[in-house]
């Protein structure tokens, strides 16, 4: 199989051959520009993208730098952008990503590049650390294991399969606009400890993860679920923390209020009342935050995004109410 690999290259201390890429648009405009160099190579038909990169590194251009170790999605080293999406190079089949015989690989614009395909893991790992990803164990005899049902352990294995490759954060839509957002990886790990029956800090954790930049800052774009190579489905873990923290009474935050206002509006009228959603989410008496949202509101108006002033119920709204009743929960 003949392949053209367009590789995004970057070396802070050297000038590189190739075509200089365009500057990134916001929100990535602070990231350095990369040079794109094309390598034409021959690979066997079942080769992975990583096989191509290793081939280049070993036999074409020794200065190409790529992190990799296990080559089978265990070590988590080789997450990168392949045709503009986060993927592990080691388990992405070349033939599946070729477009006209070409594939483009680069370090993701959401991360600071170190060199070529190597990006700075610092912020990613720091986020994980900030959720206190360790067991604060309940008292137990030093000679005996905790007695817990296997189902409780099994429930956590999904997250424990996480190899911290960073793909989810790379393509996270919320992280793109708010670099303080803890992100899918860290929050999935947060769930793993918050729902561990052996942990003694569950309440503190749930409260902390509900704070700004926590679970409620996720926009459910499902990108993390889509790109995760290990089936961790970080969004699912985030939603579980939300449910746990609401159930535990940590509802005094914009996220919970937003969710409740959303549901209330739909239950009452069968549709979303956008005019009241924002004030209710921010808090009806939180004048400061409401004033801060005015510029966005004006922008929306200017773009013709005007919600109806008078909010009508949809026909058959009683059936919507019946659905709520059937589902149960705080609004029934």
């Amino acid at each position: 199989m003949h392949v053209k690999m367009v590789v995004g290259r970057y070396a802070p201390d050297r000038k590189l051959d190739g075509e200089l890429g365009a500057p990134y648009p916001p929100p990535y405009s602070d990231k350095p520009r990369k040079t794109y160099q094309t390598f034409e190579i021959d690979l066997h038909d079942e080769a992975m993208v990583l096989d191509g990169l290793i081939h280049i590194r070993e036999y074409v251009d020794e200065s190409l730098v790529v992190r990799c170790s296990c080559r089978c999605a265990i070590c988590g080293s080789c997450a990168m952008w392949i045709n503009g999406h986060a993927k592990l190079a080691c388990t992405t089949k070349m033939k599946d990503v070729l477009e006209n015989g070409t594939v483009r690989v680069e370090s993701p614009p959401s991360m600071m590049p170190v060199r070529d395909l190597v990006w700075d893991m610092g912020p990613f790992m720091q986020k994980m650390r900030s959720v206190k990803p360790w067991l604060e164990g309940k008292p137990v005899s030093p000679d005996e294991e905790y007695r817990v049902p296997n189902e409780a352990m099994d429930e956590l294995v999904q997250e424990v399969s996480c190899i911290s490759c960073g793909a989810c954060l790379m393509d996270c839509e919320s992280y793109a606009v708010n670099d303080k957002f803890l992100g899918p990886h860290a929050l999935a790990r947060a769930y793993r400890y918050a729902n561990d029956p052996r942990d003694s800090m569950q309440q503190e954790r749930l409260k902390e993860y509900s704070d700004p930049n926590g679970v409620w800052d996720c926009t459910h774009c499902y990108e993390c679920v889509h790109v995760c190579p290990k089936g961790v489905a970080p969004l699912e873990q985030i939603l579980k923390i939300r449910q746990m923290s609401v159930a535990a009474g940590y509802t005094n935050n914009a996220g919970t209020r937003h969710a409740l206002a959303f549901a209330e509006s739909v239950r009452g009228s069968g549709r979303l009342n956008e005019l009241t959603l924002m004030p209710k989410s921010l808090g009806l008496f939180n004048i400061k935050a409401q004033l801060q949202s005015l510029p966005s509101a004006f922008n929306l108006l200017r773009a013709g995004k005007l919600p109806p002033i008078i909010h009508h119920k949809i026909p058959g709204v009683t059936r919507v109410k019946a659905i709520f009743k059937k589902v149960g929960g705080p609004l029934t």
Partner: protein
Amino acid sequence: MIIDYDVLVLGAGLAGMRSALEAKRRGASVGVISKVHPLRSHSGAAEGGINAALDPGDSWEIHAFDTIKGSDYLADQDAVEIMCREAPRDLIEMEHMGVVFFRGPDGKLGTRAFGGASKARTYFVADITGQALLNALYDTILKEDVKTHDEWFATALYVPDGTCRGAVAIDMLRGELHLLRAKAVILAAGGMGRVYEPSTNALICTGDGHALAYRAGAPLMDMEMVQYHPTTLKGTGFLMTEGARGEGAYLTNKDGERFMQRYAPKMMELASRDVVSRSETIELAEGRGVDGCVYLDLRHLGAELIHKKLPQIHEIALNFLGLDMVEVPIPIRPGMHYIMGGVKTDSDGATPLPGLYAAGECACVSVHGGNRLGANSLLDTLVFGRRSGAHMADYVKNVKPLATGEEFLKSETQRIQALLDRPYKGETHARLRLELGTLMDDKVGVYRDEAGLQDALAKVRAIRTRAQSVSVQDKGRIYNQALLFALELDYMIDCAEATIVSAIERKESRGAQSRTDYPKRDDANWLKHVLVTRSADGTPKISYQPVTITKWQPMERTY
């Protein structure tokens, strides 16, 4: 720059992190360097589980006997006793750190069967046990604030006046060399799998710890004992966990026959790894394989068990061969997996070189002897990682700080610069690495003989000469991987040479060493360890050490 610690840990896999944690808890200042981020360490690739005699129906003595029998009586029995006695405690400790071990119906830890073990004593998390342990230990390192220098690569140990006092390392991200000065240094750098091609090991397993110790004058022991895992995937050589057979999978040949009945009628597929790998090699040699492989057949286990307990190998076979093990048998062959040999240590991890310790795969205590039992390696990393951490914390109390080292850092910097400045003459690290690996797999694999070994030795020495002219074609400072690969190649050549001379020396068949010219075990002459030390002119020097026997006299080994 010069950075001072009491204890310097080289490597951040399970052994390294466990020893760092222990030394820190006991009051030492600890620095860890690792050439990859700790979570990328190869400990994470261990799939099947970790052994401990925890069940009331089991005992440490039975575990010890299984281990010693598995080792073909080459393991030092005092060390094995320590490991098996302390195993339950280390297992429980990891559980308390948060490892989500599989449970039985009573909520207590549950087991699976494993090769060479007379009881089911392997504790596990699906088929990602190593990763689960690595994650939990890393999380604890974060909790207890152990300092790690990620992506730092050690180029040499600092050994002034016959005592190990630190190491020089390259900070890959910034491209700078630093001297990490310490009162004690522990090598926890993992295995040397990449000396073989193919191997189940990750690309980072290049025998750095073995070679650093060897160059500093510490002896390597049992280096001929290279484990071939019976079930590695066709082509890529990825590991298909022994846990699969532990859960009941069959090994079959091209006729669909469970051929292990002819080699190990009692234990069948769960005989020791050396036995199973040899059996497979015979099947292949006698024409009962297909395309150089026999089969691992899991179909009768059912989709649910496979998805629940063996999800990772299911995914790997699907990704790399396009085969679904629920539906079809998976082609596998024996492949290089583990080195039982390593830097000689006592049961506290101390090497004969004062100030230098070793633990994990790069160490040889020796608890694995001629053949390691599956699920004993994770145990080895934790028990001896912890013990060496504790011992170092004590040892450093009586060591005075050092003010020297500038000169050594300067000379290392010059050596590295000379390597970078070397002109291109056509030799590349990649070609030599491949040549070395295929040579080792060909001549120093499951079966060996004098002619092949001598041939391999001559060729490795030729590769060493050629490696002197390998140039680094990347002239960048930041994250210069080509430089790292060139340095690793030198390490790998040291390991290969030590392995071959030891294999030539041992004129018998024991454990993983199967000599077709000496097919029998010879306790009268060879119930002893082979040690290799580097002499002043760089050539390997052989010496011996008796095997410690406590209560288990060598017997004939059948499964």
